[in-house]
């Protein structure tokens, strides 16, 4: 079924966009490195492949005049998801170009910002690329070389988005979301494990103790919040 395929592809694009954002946030800080630049490059390429695939799929689906109203509404919703992802990706790519230019890695007088982040981001990149471990094989001057590629890719993405706008007539404000407020809490995510040992960042924060039973109580609370 076209819808399921679309959904999985969109999920993949969504995942890659989120990971890309995390990587761009680390640019310019003390966790910046050759590896990070390479991770950015690879994630970007993957994102673009997914974007093109998504676009062709969705355009063909939306151009089809013989689909029912509910199907059309569903495809429009998926289209809005896709275009929002692309917007985020485009902004992040432009920002990574800007920050990458401001913080070249090889210049000794140019210091990286001491943000307190010192670890590597290879796990994030591995998640984006859906691999177990990242392999690093790029040259040592990737930070300057990559920027040129990045510029061309940004223009490509902008062009693609303009084409998208022209070809497909979708009114984004007419789309009704399926998720209600507080939907992110009712997920099958294991919120529990990560917060064991969560430390208070400052004295005002309460120490969070994660108990699985709490989630049930709070699910009720979110339903109240929806009203």
């Amino acid at each position, binding site marked *: 079924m076209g819808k399921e395929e679309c959904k999985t592809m969109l999920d993949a694009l969504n995942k890659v966009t989120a990971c890309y954002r995390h990587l761009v946030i680390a640019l310019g800080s003390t966790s910046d490195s050759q590896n990070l630049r390479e991770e950015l490059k690879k994630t970007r390429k993957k994102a673009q492949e997914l974007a093109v695939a998504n676009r062709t799929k969705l355009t063909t689906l939306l151009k089809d005049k013989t689909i029912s109203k509910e199907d059309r509404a569903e495809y429009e919703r998926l289209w809005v998801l896709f275009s929002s992802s692309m917007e985020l990706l485009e902004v992040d790519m432009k920002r990574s170009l800007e920050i990458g230019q401001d913080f070249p890695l090889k210049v000794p007088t140019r210091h990286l910002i001491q943000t307190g982040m010192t670890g590597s981001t290879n796990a994030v990149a591995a998640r984006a690329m859906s691999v177990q471990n990242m392999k690093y094989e790029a040259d040592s001057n990737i930070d300057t070389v990559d920027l040129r590629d990045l510029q061309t890719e940004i223009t490509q993405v902008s062009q693609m988005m303009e084409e998208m706008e022209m070809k497909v007539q979708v009114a984004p404000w007419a789309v009704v979301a399926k998720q209600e407020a507080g939907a*992110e809490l009712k997920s099958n995510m294991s*919120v529990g494990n990560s917060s064991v040992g969560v430390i208070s960042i400052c004295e005002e924060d309460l120490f969070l103790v994660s108990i699985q039973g709490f989630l049930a109580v709070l699910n009720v609370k979110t339903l109240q919040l929806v009203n």
Partner: protein
Amino acid sequence: MTIRNALRDHGQRYRPRMACLKKAEKVLLEMQDPCTGVKSQPQRLVITIIPHAITGEDIIAWLADRFQIDAQEARSFGSMLVALGYIYPLQDHKRLVIKPDTSLYRFQTPYFWPTQQWPVEDTDYAIYLAKRNIRKKGILELHEQEQYNHLHKWMNHKWDFVVMQAKEQYRAAKERKKPDRVVFDCQERAYWVVHRPPPGTVSAMDYGLDRRTDPNTDETQTPDYYERIMIFTQQSIMRPRVKSSVSIGALVKYSATYSGHDPFLSKCLPSNPWLTDDTTYWTLNMSNVEIPTKMRVERWTFSFKELLSDPRGRDDFRLFLKKEFSGENLAFWEGCEDLKWGTAVAMREKAEQIYKTFLARGAPRWINIDGKTMEITVKGLKHPHRYVLDAAQTHIYMLMKKDSYGRYLKSPVFKETLKKAICPEEHKFNEVQLEQNARNRRPSLSPIIIRQQEQEQRAKMAANAPVDITQVMSKLSKQGKEMGPHHSK
């Protein structure tokens, strides 16, 4: 394509006043130098150790040393960097100030630096709130909850995307090591404290409307662009010229006259309310105050315009004119101002009223203007508009300026006011009192109420309008005739 930020994005981006951002970035980079930069220390949190924490006093000392300024100024500079979002506090994260003690701060990552090029998107804020909702398990702060509901309502079409992204970003963040995760949470939270300040926080990024074009980009050379250059140069040629010695002399004279009255250049008596949070200065200088301050009265002597533009000065002048029985001039001038600045609906009526009261033959408060001006005015009044009485008003204004103003400054009314004028003592607040003043800040009277009061006053004055001399004389002569036969008693 979605409509980005339909509510707040007016398609305008650039505001020159934010040039401080580039300068602040340079300072930030200097601070990073391992030899000459700010000393950093590790922060200990239960079991984890996070590097690159800096103390407030170190920052202030570094700034004072680098720019050769005193500690107070370094402290303000540091607070500015924190308010802009380049450095964020680790404890007490909602108060964006630098404390000159061992409280810890950290540098913000370049992605979260404030910049005008990349407007702060509501989509990002929605994703952040959703992530926070997950982390805090549904318990958001009050203002965050309100924002969340508001965004959910107007950004509803994107809400699926927001939820999906929030979950993915949350999962991606978990892939990093524990210290980096903590740092990332702090960074993101600090970013949103600056750009969506909680109630009671002052963020420096609140700079008002943006300009339409970036003043630093090159403009495209269209024919229209060259047309504009041509018009500009033609107008420059036709502009009247003044010798620089004359214009500079005027500037020097103006600066010398007004420098004592400028609150930036000299002390404001009793104290500048913006600095000490004490509103005595404003209450002493209100428009309907009985006894003005000496500085205010001095300003009335600078020029006639100053006297008229100050409401208290105008009242004094009106009193003087009443004694001289030439109040109609000022009343006419005020009527003309009212016509110029009033609503279009009432214009016709007002113009007629003014004509009947001041300009018509045998009017109760007839003003003395020359024949030519009268002719022009009467002709114009057939089709009245806002500026129909301009010529007459200018004539009367020059009359008052050349004649009455000089006599006013020598009159007993003015001398009396000058004698009674007060010169308030300067306040000397210490730190504790300043903080107390800051806590006791109260909003002033609403401008709506002030305008109502002004209107009431004006109505009262119109009711007790002073009669002019012809009426007084006719009344006296009538009285004399009545009392005539019995007068000898």
